[in-house]
């Protein structure tokens, strides 16, 4: 066996810097129905004029989210790639990210100037999270209608995501959810990591989330600058 196959000689070549200025990869995860696709569409509409961007979807039925994005985000077909996850949506974003990496790399080769890629996970549960081999930053989307206990239940998406989005705040009075409790519980488990309470129905531009994404693009540009 050649000496460079020994663990002592292993140098990991795969760091964000190693990707040498490729697009910022943003994971969008969260439970079924929390508004991941609607958020992706909103971000594409708001940021589409500013950045060269594309989306990877991991829906159960592969054309469902892609069709939604085409209609709602005015994104051309060649900027949307759908992957099959073999019945295991969180395996495909964390344990074996091959199919998603293939999709991201295909988009990068098709659009050499790409600046931003959203990877939208298939609807999963509170234990799902993205591997940092696939994305640079991740957003976890939950919604008020799922109950105000969700932030307290925790899980890696709620506690460790780079941004937690609590969507559908307009429904809070209808479902008896206390936004103050959700804010307090989120802050308690997330430390310095930000949480945004939003309503995509009231703000279809997802203004605050889009601003957070802009900050991440700027931060990555500084990090990978020559």
């Amino acid at each position: 066996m050649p000496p460079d196959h020994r663990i002592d000689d292993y140098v990991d070549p795969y760091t964000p810097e190693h990707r040498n200025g490729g697009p910022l990869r943003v994971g969008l995860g969260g439970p079924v129905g929390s508004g991941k696709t609607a958020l992706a569409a909103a971000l594409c509409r708001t940021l589409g004029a500013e950045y060269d961007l594309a989306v990877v979807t991991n829906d159960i039925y592969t054309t469902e989210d892609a069709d939604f994005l085409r209609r709602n985000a005015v994104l051309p077909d060649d900027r949307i790639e759908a992957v099959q996850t073999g019945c295991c949506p969180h395996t495909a974003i964390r344990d074996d990210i091959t199919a998603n990496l293939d999709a991201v790399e295909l988009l990068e080769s098709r659009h050499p100037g790409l600046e931003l890629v959203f990877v939208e996970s298939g609807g999963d549960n509170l234990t799902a999270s993205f591997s940092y081999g696939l994305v640079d930053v991740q957003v976890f989307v939950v919604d008020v209608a799922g109950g105000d206990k969700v932030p307290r239940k925790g899980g890696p998406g709620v506690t460790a995501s780079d941004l937690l989005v609590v969507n559908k705040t307009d429904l809070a009075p209808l479902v008896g959810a206390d936004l103050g409790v959700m804010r307090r519980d989120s802050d308690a488990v997330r430390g310095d990591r930000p949480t945004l309470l939003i309503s995509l129905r009231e703000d279809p531009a997802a203004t605050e989330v889009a601003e957070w994404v802009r900050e991440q693009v700027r931060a990555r540009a500084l990090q990978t600058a020559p």
Partner: protein
Amino acid sequence: MTAALLTLADSRLPAGGHTHSGGVEQAIAAGVLADPGSLAVFLRRRLATSGAVAAGLAAAACRAVDDADPVAALGALDAEADARTPSPALRAASRQQGRGLVRVGSRAWPHPAWAALPAQPHHPLALGVAAATGGLTPRDAAHAAAYLSISGPATAAQRLLAMDPITVAAVTARLAPEVDEVADASAEDLPAATDPLLDLLAELHAARNDRFFAS
């Protein structure tokens, strides 16, 4: 070198195999796979055809790493793989899995042989190069290929039919002697067995947009 072989055959190796059902998803849709008995029949059929072909190609690719001209040798084997894979959907699935294995294999075991592979090589070729660069023999490569030809599909059946995972493990385990037999018989040869049923299932599957698996 057993640990390297176990690494290659491990379903947790992140090479993308978990998104491929090896025809199982469409076999279930077509009604030819529904229970442990029909799963065993399906797996045995797959092992005898695509399993044998993959085992032969993997062993040959492992040997090609030491060829005087590995680029030409691996290129010729890639064409042999195409010739043995009539279904365009299965060719694409094989190349997709080959690409995934190159990504992880070349990080684990860097070697000039990886660059000698064609872009997006057939999966058995990537497996042969992985075996060689991991310090394994052509026979080991054949065994990994034969085993992988049934292990992934068995897991897919378990997921799609919510079968008892212990039953599925037992079915796979009981096929072990046949896996070894196919691997040993294919390691010095390039078998050209095909199964028209698997080809048809793959083509029907590729046309669907309501599928969980890539193939």
